[in-house]
């Protein structure tokens, strides 16, 4: 039952406590400086990175060097590029060596056209990595049955997609997300597809524990300003969730002001 700590509104994933409910990706930024400034503006505490082979000609532009110097940020390597469970497990072990962090975003999407996560390979990789002690955070289809299976094998969180990676199509899976939230006993993080801060706010309002964004910030007109906007939206959405939304009416209006005997009777 690590869903939340109500006193401080911190949330706990894999035994690690965080206050920020916005996770940031580091891909697609035009340069390292913009990326670092955006991460700072987002106030994210979990930041995803990817793993690649070193080219034959060493590259001078170290995108991630400055990130490692920032305090209070946990680097979470992903397994992007893995086409199956065994490749993802290998990537996770390498990522742990490089980041010194037990966190791993298991990400297995064999089809480059839609980049939909492979549920079977994701499940297999998650099961093995969780048993090895990783804090496993699987990028997954918004499927409540799979969500329960992933929870049962020891995942630290669930990361269902809102819509396809980088598509900016928002919370297309909202009804499935509601079903996942209904039963989840571990944090639920909407990962992928978000475009606007209002979508992030909506995810938090409906009870998601956090959201992960990358393209929405990196491909924005002003990435640093957009990161700050997402930070505010996530906070507003979370605050609204805690405050409790009013009941939704049917098709009829319910007046907020007295309507009868306008001006002819004394107010009640």
């Amino acid at each position, binding site marked *: 039952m690590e869903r939340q700590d109500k006193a401080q509104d911190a949330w706990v994933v894999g035994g690690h406590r965080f206050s920020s409910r916005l996770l940031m990706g580091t*891909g697609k930024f035009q340069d390292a400086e913009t990326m670092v400034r955006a991460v700072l503006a987002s106030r994210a505490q979990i930041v995803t990175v990817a793993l690649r082979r070193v080219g034959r000609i060493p590259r001078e532009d170290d995108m991630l060097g400055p990130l490692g110097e920032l305090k209070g940020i946990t680097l979470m390597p992903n397994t992007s590029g893995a086409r199956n469970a065994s490749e993802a497990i290998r990537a996770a072990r390498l990522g742990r060596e490089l980041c010194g962090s037990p966190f791993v975003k298991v990400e297995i999407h064999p089809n480059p056209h839609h980049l939909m996560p492979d549920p079977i390979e994701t499940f297999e990789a998650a099961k093995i990595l969780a048993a090895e002690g990783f804090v496993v955070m699987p990028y997954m289809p918004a499927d409540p049955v799979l969500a329960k299976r992933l929870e049962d094998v020891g995942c630290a969180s669930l990361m269902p997609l809102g819509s396809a990676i980088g598509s900016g199509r928002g919370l297309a899976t909202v009804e499935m997300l509601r079903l996942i939230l209904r039963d989840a006993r571990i944090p639920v993080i909407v990962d992928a597809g978000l475009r606007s801060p209002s979508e992030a706010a909506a995810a938090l309002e409906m009870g998601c524990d956090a959201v992960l964004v990358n393209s929405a910030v990196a491909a924005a007109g002003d990435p640093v300003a957009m990161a700050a906007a997402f930070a505010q939206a996530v906070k507003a959405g979370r605050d609204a969730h805690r405050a409790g939304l009013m009941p939704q009416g049917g098709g009829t209006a319910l007046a907020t002001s007295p309507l009868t005997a306008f001006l002819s009777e004394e107010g009640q």
Partner: protein
Amino acid sequence: MKLIVNGEAYEAKRHESVSALLEEMGIGGRPVVVVLNDEVIPSSSRSACGLREGDCVELFRLVGGG
């Protein structure tokens, strides 16, 4: 000494250790993870870990990703 580095043939002049190879390749001191014949070599073991003819070396680094 002939090695396979990241899937390609590589003629190493310095092969007394993994650390020496990284220096030769210009990536000494950079944050990379070294896999030697499918086994991760912790950074603390690199200077003591020697190389043999035909060894398969893979080098990975962190890049931006979502």
